[in-house]
Structures are given as C-alpha cells and as structure tokens.
C-alpha cells in the first residue's frame, strides 16, 4: 500500500473524525493507502511539519496556509471538508455586551496561533481599534479553555461551536444565558479545516493520484461520520480522544460544518480569507494558486 502521513492541527478529537473513521472503517485500505495520522497539539505548527518533510498532507486553516505560502512553503488546498466556520464569540447575557455596538471598552478573549485573523478582520470591518484604548477593545490572548468567561476575566470569549461552546454549557450556562456572534452567520468566516499539500509534490502524477485516493477515502469517512455521529465519536475515543460524551457532542456539531461532505472549496470564502489576510498584512502580496479543485473534481464525481 502507498504510505501517506497526515498531520492534524490539534489533538485527537471528533474535529478530525472523518480521517479516523476512514482509517478504522478500512476506506483507506480500500484505496490502497496506508495512512499514518499524527495528532497535533498546542504550538505544533503543521506547516512546519510538512516543510520539514514530516508529513504528506496536513489539516490546516486557510490563514495559516496562506501565511506559510507567503514565506515560501508552497501549500495548496486540495480539499475543504469544513464548509462553514465553527468559530464564534460568546458573551454571558447578564454581562455588558448584547450587540456589536457594546464592544467598545470591553475585554474580549481571542485565540492566537493563526486563529485570530477572523476576529481582527471583523473588528476591522466594524471599525474598532484593538489596542486596549477606551474607544477600542482590549484583547486577551485566551488559552484553550473557557476559564476567562467563568472567571469574568473577559466579557466575551472565543469558542468553537463543536468544542468550547459545549464546555460553556457544561459549566452551567444555558444557551438562553448567552449572546452568540457566529462568524459564519455574520458572513465573516474564514476557511477552517482543509487539507493541504506541497505544490511541488503535487506535480508528480503518482503523488497526485495518491492524493485523489486519499481525499476520496477521507470524504467517505466524513460522510460516514456525519451520518453515524455516535459511532464516529467512539472511534475517535478509541484512537485516543478524551471524554466520550464530549466527543459525541463535538461530532454532532462538526457534522453541521461538514455539510454534504464533497470536500469542495467555495471560492468566495477563499477570496474573503485572502483579502482579510492581506488587509491585516499577514501576507505581503496577493495570494494566488493556493488551491486546486483538480483533486476533488477527480475524487468526487
């Protein structure tokens, strides 16, 4: 079988269920692939891993991939399993913030490590400064939990629909206690989990073929996972995911983002992402050639 190494963006969890399901259900085997799934972690940059030759494909957000491309690591999106963004900003209803207009002068929790671009793009759009002054907002770099909200260190925090939002609920908040700003709903979303590989390698027909098979099997995995969320969650737990109940919740939420599991990239979202990055000077020149539909076209007929 052909070996493929996949580097995830984060730890083993239902966010990556499609790949684990494809592996567990033998979809990769059926395509003649031997896939090695490497979990990520905080401060593991998949872009670095692939540049160092440690992976063939990575799961990444478009923002990170474009930034890396700007620095000479020619990443190309070959499939986009997540159609919608899972990121949102939540604020307790009994807090000071009810609408966008209330942000001024308050503290907002934001993830960094590449996840801050949608936030800055949004603030840019509504004309708020982010330097902590009185007519802007104070940004707090949030760690990977919801403590700043519980501790009241921030008035709003960033959550993923499929993950931290669940933790907020676990912590005793009910959905009606919360004000939610969803990036997708506001039309501010940037592309999240996609599959990326190196442009050079893709020129090799054998490799391209391998990727076609890989994407096909992976999307089959995603399809299966979205249809059998509980089973998928269990597969993830077997692969090392923590907290079964939480994985089940996550799987259900992730299923909503994956949509119809065709893995096709939506050019409008790509354009929006690229523009936001250029506006924020994350990339120095207009992005081009950072995605190809050739793979998905061949994989999913």
């Amino acid at each position, binding site marked *: 079988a052909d070996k493929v190494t996949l580097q995830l963006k984060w730890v083993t969890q239902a966010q990556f269920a499609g790949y684990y399901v494809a592996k567990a259900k033998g979809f990769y085997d059926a395509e003649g692939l031997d896939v090695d799934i490497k979990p990520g972690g905080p401060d593991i940059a998949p872009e670095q891993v692939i540049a160092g030759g440690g992976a063939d494909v990575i799961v990444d957000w478009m923002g990170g991939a474009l930034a890396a491309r700007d620095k000479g690591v020619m990443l190309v999106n070959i499939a986009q399993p997540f159609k919608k963004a899972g990121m949102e900003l939540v604020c307790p209803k009994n807090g000071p913030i009810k609408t966008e207009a209330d942000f001024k002068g308050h503290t907002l929790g934001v993830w960094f490590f590449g996840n801050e671009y949608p936030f800055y793009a949004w603030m840019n759009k509504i004309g708020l400064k982010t330097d902590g002054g009185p007519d802007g907002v104070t940004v707090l770099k949030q760690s990977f939990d919801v*403590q700043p909200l519980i501790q009241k260190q921030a008035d709003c925090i960033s959550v993923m629909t499929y993950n931290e939002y669940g933790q907020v609920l676990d912590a005793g908040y009910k959905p009606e206690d919360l004000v939610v700003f969803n990036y997708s709903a506001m039309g501010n979303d940037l592309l999240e989990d996609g599959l990326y590989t190196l442009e050079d390698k893709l020129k090799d027909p054998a490799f391209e073929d391998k990727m076609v098979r890989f994407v096909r099997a992976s999307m089959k995995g995603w399809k299966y996972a979205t249809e059998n969320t509980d089973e998928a969650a269990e597969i993830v737990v077997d692969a090392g995911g923590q907290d079964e109940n939480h994985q089940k919740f996550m799987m259900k939420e992730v299923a909503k983002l994956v949509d119809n599991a065709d893995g096709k990239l939506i050019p409008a979202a790509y354009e929006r992402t690229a523009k936001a990055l250029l506006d924020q000077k994350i990339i120095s020149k207009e992005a081009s050639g950072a995605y190809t539909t050739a793979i998905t076209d061949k994989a999913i007929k």
Partner: protein
Amino acid sequence: MNWLKPSWQAVLAILLCLIAFALGAMTKPEAAALAEPAATLAYPYMGAKGLIIGLLLIAALVSTLRLTPVVEAIVLFVGAHAAAWLLVKGIAGFEGTALAPYFLLLAAAWLLAWHCVALLSSLRPSGSVARNALRLIIPAIFGTWILIIWEAVTRGAGIPFILLPPPSAIGARIANSLPILGSDVRQTIFKAVLIGYVVGNLAGFTVAILADRVPFLRRGLLPIGNMVSALPIIGVAPIMVMWFGFDWPSKAAVVIIMTFFPMLVNTVAGLAASGHMERDLMRTYASGYWPTLLKLRLPAAMPFIFNALKINSTLALIGAIVAEFFGTPVVGMGFRISTEVGRMNIDMVWAEIAVAALAGSVFYGVVALVERAVTFWHPSVRGG
C-alpha cells in the same frame, strides 16, 4: 624542521580545501554550467572560488610556521573570516544549491577559526585592558561562528524559512521591530521575571532557613518542597492565570514556583557546608542560632546559593516566557513567540529568542560578577 609547528586543525583544513578543489563544482548551477560549457550560465563563485581556497590555504600554511601566537592568530582570524564572508556572500540568490565543496570549505574555515580561538585563549597578557579584551573577543569569535555556520548552512542547504531562518533575516527583523521587542521585554522581563525571581529566590531561601531552624519543619517541609519542584509550568501556568489574572502577576507566580526549588535545595546543601571546627568555634562563643547563621553558615553557603541564583536566572526567563503561552494580554515575549509561530513569522520568533538569550546572558553575567565579589575567598574564585 623546528620552524614548522603544524596544528591538527590547519592540516585538516588544508586537506579539506584540497578535497573541495578536487570535487569541483560548488553549486548546482556551476555543475550545470560545467556540464554544458557552451552555454554561458551565470553561477555563483565564478571568480571567488579560487580566492576562497587560496585564502584558506595561505592562512593554514602560514599558521604552521613558528610565529608568535598573536601574529598567527591574526593571520588565521583574517583568513577564516574573509573566506567565510565570501562563501556566505556568494550563495546569495542561489540558496539551496550548494554542493559538498561548499560545506567542506566552510568546515575548513571553521577549523582555522577554532585554532585561532585556541591560540587566543592560551595567551596570558599582562595588561588588564588586553586581558579584558580577550575575555570578550574569545566568546565573540565562538558566537560569530555559530552564526556563520547557521547562516551558511540554512542558505546553502536551502532550509525552509519557516523551519529555521538565517541569522541575517533575524537580525534584520530585530532592527525593524525594536519598539515591539522593547515593549515585550518590558512586560516579560521587567515585570514578570524580575519580580518572580526575587520573590521566588527569597521564598526558597526562607523556607530553607525555616527548615533548618525548626527540625520539625525540616522533616515536614523538605519532602513537600521536593514536590513543588516538578509542578510543570504547563500544568501550573493555566492555574496561575485562573488565580492571578492574565496579566504579569500570574507569570511572576509561575516564575516563583520555578525558582523556588533550586534555591531551596542549594541553600539546604550550603547550610551543611561549613566546617566542623568552625562550627565548634562558634559553639565555644555560645553563639546563638542567628549569629552562627549570619557569620559562619551563610558565608560558607554562598557558593551554593549563587549556584541557585545562576540556574534560576535562566529558569526564570524560560518560566515567564512559557507561562505567556497560556493566556496573556497581547504583549510579552512569550505571547509574541506563540502568535508569530502561528503567522509563520519564524524570524520574529527567533528575534524574540535572541533578545531572551541576550537578556538572560546579561542577567547571568551580573549574578556571576556579584558571585565573584561575594565569594572571593572560595578556591574556585581564587583560582583552582
């Protein structure tokens, strides 16, 4: 042959030069040009190749003569650095195309520089100005070579920028980002590190004294103190953010926890280090616990205490920076490092690391100077 005095570095360097010459092309474009002599291809080191090899050979050969060490060191210094400079300069625009001779010549230059440093450190100048200058020059050459090799290898081998940028790019980034670096240093070092360092060391010291004074506490506190030793930053930092907020106090708290244990252990060991006869002497004066501590046991413990202060000077920095990975305002060295990694601005990451290294070295240097002044009597300072 007593006018010859070859060093193994020089001999090896000559050998490397000859091998490099025999192997021919330095870079892929040159190899291509040689393969197709008809085409006039531009390739690096068109004229400089002979110059580089020549420089190295001459420096190496001259150094085998029986010269005074100073002259020999100067010849080697000039030869090695000029060659290195030509090598690094020549690869510009042709990154990632270097072949074996490139690395061989680099190694040859490095060997000569090594011999140069060895010569310099064997000098024992009488003037204090010369001595101090040497004390600076030697580590500087050593450090320069770390940078030269780093630059030459990353560029010669074409290591992806986002894995390891060359030092020249890092330098440029430092020069362009002074205000940001400045505010990060202020946040991380002047607030979190310094305060945490002082409090942490004092805490470790105080607990050690307490444990020493009260036998009951000694038996109870020390095992528990040991447990604190491994509270990993990653586990503790989020908790500290929970307790002390996301600004610098939580980082200082992490630094306190990190510096506490080395100080505790070293002070306890140091307090046991005074001699028996000296302790008996204090007993004959019916000296109480505190005078004995102040006049005998603490001075005798100083070498150990400074040990801890030195180790902690670097630990404190690591602690504060890493703690900032977990929830911070949007300023600070750790914040910058973790976010710029995400943005693939690895040069900025290294710029922060360079600043951290510089600050840490200065910090350590100051502690070491104070140590020399305080433990002037210890054999390790008097010269052993």
